[in-house]
Structures are given as C-alpha cells and as structure tokens.
C-alpha cells in the first residue's frame, strides 16, 4: 500500500527540487539585474567621463566650447548650499527628533507631527521646489539665491534627519535615562549629557545620508530658477576689510553640480556628453563616498555597542 504512494511522490519531489533550483537562478538573476545593470551603466559613465576630469575641468567656468568648459561655479555653489542646508536642516531635524522621542506626550498634536513627517518623506522633491518658488522667491522676496536653495534642501532633508535621529535615540536603553533621573538630573540634562552623546554616531550616520541626498537633488533647485550657465563665483565669504566676514554670497545667483550636468546632458550634439559624464562621475563618486561612510559607521556601531 505504501509502495504506490511512494512511487507517486518521488517524481513530485524531484519536480519540486527542480522548481526550487530554477527559482534560485531566477532570484539571483533579478538581483544581478538590479545591481549588475547599474554596474554596467556606471562603467559606461566612467568610460566616457573619467578622461575629462583634470585640474582644468575643476577650475574652469562653463564655456561654449566643450573642451574648455569646467565646473568651478558648480562645485562652489554646491558647497555653499550644503553649508546653508547643514546649518539650518541639521539642528532643526535633531531638535524635532529629540522632542518626538523624549518629550512628546501622546496628544493629537504629536500624532499630527508624526503624520506630517511620514508624509513629507514621500512628497516628490519637485513639490518642495514649487513651495520654495512661491514662498521664498516671491512672497519673501529672497530671489533665486543660494540662501533659498539651501533652505529648500534643508526642508527636504528634514524628514530623513528626523527619522534617522529618532532611531538612534530610541536605541539608547531606558535604564540610562532612569539612572540619570535617579541622580536628580533634569530631562534636558539627561538628554544633553547622556542620550545625545551616546547616540552621536547614529545621528551622524543619518546626517551624512541626508546631506548626500541633498547634494544630488536637481529638480527642486531647477524649479526655483537656478541657471545652468554661470560665468562668475558668488562673493567670497571672507573680506580684507573689517568685519572680515561677509554674507553677500547668501543672496548671490548660483549653479550646482547636478544642474550643470543637466545643462550639459540636455544640449544637443555629442560634444557636451563627455562633460556631462565627467560631472556625473564626480557626483556619483561624492554620493557613494558619503553613503559608504554612513554604511561603514553603522556597521561598526552595530559591532561595538552592546548595552
């Protein structure tokens, strides 16, 4: 009686094993497509762009002649905008995260804040550009300036900073806080002397990820009206006359790396494709370095910390 059922089940097991093996191939294939296609594409980018990158490319203004064009105003603009974004976005985001994790009681207000944070994380970046165009550029009259671009990106990275900081803070065990309270510390003393220093590495990881996202953003900055062709630098932040420091650059027109690349990509003709690829290599290099650093930091943290 058991013999026929066995002979019946044997081919089925074989078939199931074949199906399993097939799926493994398909699964690995899909992963390879996800990772491999991109490796291929980056190969193409590197092949077209790497030879263009030299000192002259980094230190020249854009030009009508592809061979002479460079990205000096673009990387200066990107650097200054990142400065504004970091100065505004990081303290706001970290403070908001501290409030939500350590202070907030369960009220409708807290609920509202949480919902808006989640929602903002999913808003397309170009919508932030429209917000900045309507609010910063026209209603507040700040023009198409470095300040506006920095503020726009600060709002854009806020959800990322908040979410990652909250995760880092949440990983600190409650006992640490209880011990501090037990010794008579106030809430802020507990947070600033214990919670923040212990979660600093996690918060830093989040900040790096957020800034790496901001540095590659194109759509919102195009929307506020950044130019693709700029043949001058913003005023220097340091001057020879007292008070030696100047904030004129905040209201200066600008361009940034991704917009410079966009400008070159959308020019007809083959000439500028090489420049675009070179800018692309630098951009990808920068974001991958920042992300790699963040991933490494997180990996080390996970290994070290044992509460």
């Amino acid at each position, binding site marked *: 009686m058991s013999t026929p059922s066995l002979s019946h089940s044997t081919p089925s097991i074989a078939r199931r094993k074949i199906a399993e093996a097939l799926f493994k191939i398909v699964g690995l294939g899909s992963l390879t497509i996800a990772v491999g296609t991109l490796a291929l594409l980056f190969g193409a980018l590197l092949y077209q762009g790497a030879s263009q990158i030299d000192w002259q490319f980094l230190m020249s203004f854009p030009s009508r002649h592809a061979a002479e064009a460079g990205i000096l105003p673009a990387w200066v603009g990107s650097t200054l905008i990142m400065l504004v974004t970091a100065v505004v976005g990081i303290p706001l985001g970290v403070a908001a995260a501290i409030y939500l994790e350590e202070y907030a009681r369960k009220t409708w207000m807290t609920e509202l804040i949480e919902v808006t944070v989640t929602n903002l994380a999913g808003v397309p970046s170009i919508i932030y*550009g429209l917000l900045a165009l309507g609010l910063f550029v026209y209603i507040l009259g700040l023009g198409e300036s470095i300040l506006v671009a920095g503020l726009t990106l600060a709002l854009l990275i806020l959800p990322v900073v908040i979410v990652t900081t909250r995760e880092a803070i949440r990983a600190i065990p409650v006992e640490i806080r209880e011990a501090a309270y037990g010794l008579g510390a106030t809430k802020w003393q507990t947070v600033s002397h214990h919670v923040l220093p212990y979660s600093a590495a996690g918060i830093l990881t989040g900040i790096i990820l957020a800034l790496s996202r901001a540095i590659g953003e194109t759509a919102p900055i195009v929307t506020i009206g950044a130019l693709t062709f700029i043949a001058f630098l913003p005023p220097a932040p340091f001057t020879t006359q007292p008070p030696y420091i100047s904030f004129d650059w905040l209201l200066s027109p600008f361009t940034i790396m991704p917009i410079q*690349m966009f400008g070159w990509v959308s020019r007809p003709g083959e000439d500028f494709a090489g420049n675009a690829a070179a800018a692309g290599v630098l951009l990808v290099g920068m974001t991958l370095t920042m992300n790699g650093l963040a991933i490494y930091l997180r990996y080390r943290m996970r290994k070290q910390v044992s509460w």
Partner: protein
Amino acid sequence: MNTSSMAEQEAMHISKPNAIEEAAARRRTRQQRERVIEGGLFLAALTSVATTVLIIAVLLSESIGFFKTVPLRDFFTDTLWTPLFANPHYGILPLLAGTLVTSAVGLLVAIPLGTVAAIYLSEFSSSRVREIIKPALELLGAVPTVVYGYFALLVVTPALQRLWPDLPGFNMLGPGIVIGIMIMPFVISLSEDAMRAVPMVLREGSYAMGATRLQTAWRVVVPAATSGLVAAYVLGISRAVGETMVVAIAAGQNPNLTWNPLEPAATITAYIVQVALGDLPHGSIGYQSIFAAGLVLAVMTFAFNILGHVLRKRFREVY
C-alpha cells in the same frame, strides 16, 4: 542638580529662611530653563507641520488664480496642453498620460524583478549574501537622479534603438525602464521587510508538512505578507509618479496624449522643469499653470502615500 540639593542641605543646617528661598528660586529658574528648552524643541518639531501646511497653501493659492481663468471642466477634459502658445489649451490629460505611461513601464520592471529579488533575499540567501547585497542596494538608491537621466538618454535609449530602429531619441520606454531600475532597491527593501516580519513559526509549520522552501515562500510567506508587499508597490508608484529628472531629460518636452511608450511625451514633472528653465513672469498664467500641475501631482502622491502607509501599518499590526 548638585547645587540645589546642597542648597537644601545647607538650608536645613543653618535653617535660615533666606537660604530656603534662594534654593526655591534656583529651582524655579531651572524649571523655567527646562520649559524654554522644551518649547524650543517643540517649535522645531512643528516645522514639519508648518512645511506641510505651507506646501498646501502655496499650491492652492497659485492654483486658484489658474482656475479663475481655466474652467475645471476644460482642465480635466481638454486633450491639449499648450499654455505657452498663442492659442492656449489647458487640458492636463496629456501630461497625466505621460506620467502614467512612464510610471507603468517603471513598475512593470520594478515589481516582478523586485518581488522575486526580495523573496530570494528574504527566504533563500545566506545572511552573508544579504549583508553584502543590502548595502549595495542602498548605495544604488542614493545615486542622484540626474545621473539616471543621463543613462536613460545616452545609454538605454541608444541600446533600445538597436532593437527598434524607429524609436525616437526621446521616448517614454527608455526613461520608464530606468525609473524601474531606480525604484527597484526601494521596492526590494520594503518587500523584504514585509516578508521578514512574517513569524518563523509559520515557515516551520510549512516545512514540517514537507513543503520546500519555494512552496513555503510562495504559499505561506507571500500571502502572509501581502499587505506589506502591496504597500511596497504603492510607495514605489508614488516614487515613479514624482520622478522628475529622468523624464525631463529623456522623455521629451512635448505634451502628447498617447499610451504608446515608444513615443515621446512630457510628464507633469517634466513640464514644471521646462517652465522653470524658461523665464516666465511671476503671476502670469504660465507661471500659475506649474502650480496647478504640481497640485495634481501632489494629490496623486499624497493618495498613494496614505494608502501605502495604511497598508504597512496593517501588516505590522497582524504580527
């Protein structure tokens, strides 16, 4: 904390009413400082609410100006979008079609490949493979979108033109495929989270009945993780719909009411970029039209995001 407790001790020893008052005053200033700090942190947290309100307010107020000129009926039924022409038409359908076609192509790439890859990662791969693949996927998700636009225009489309020699230089297929590759890491990561949230007991039960890994994955894990998987797809759609630079670079700038991905067409986002690159005076109908287009985009992504998060919450609650 030391100063105040010492002050209290001092007060007890000497029992001067003055010292007690001093300690109380110190405690009051400390409490005040705490309250100021909490208030400051609360204000920082309110930024997110303020940003949301401001986005809605700016989009609505500029759109109201637009809809004073353009009747809502024309906006949703006219089949031409030519706000900058001498004879303007304001029908959102061509832009909507462009957005939907590029997103659909992207999803046709990202959903099947992403799901299979996620099943493989969650159910089959060793933890070592996962340790390598997950950060790699994360890196891919961080590449600036303008670089993907370059790929779509100068790498993927020329490759596709070898298959279809008639394919125009600007088309929706190339950017659609690139969008798919671009959102795949996001879809994989969310789907894998959903499947890993399925308790081990369910898998063990299935193995005990003699099921293979594939049978367990397909008949137990995937059904149990359905709402999480759907949430991953929905959030992926929201990303694809809002994607800007890839389509602005590679899909063309002409609004074109077509469902054929081999043709060029502008999307909502590409139109906004196109207008922003020009120099339209503030307050003109062309300027207002990008806010009306943005409003449509925002409503669509809001809807998808809310749906996605409701679904995600559901799968978290079940287990």
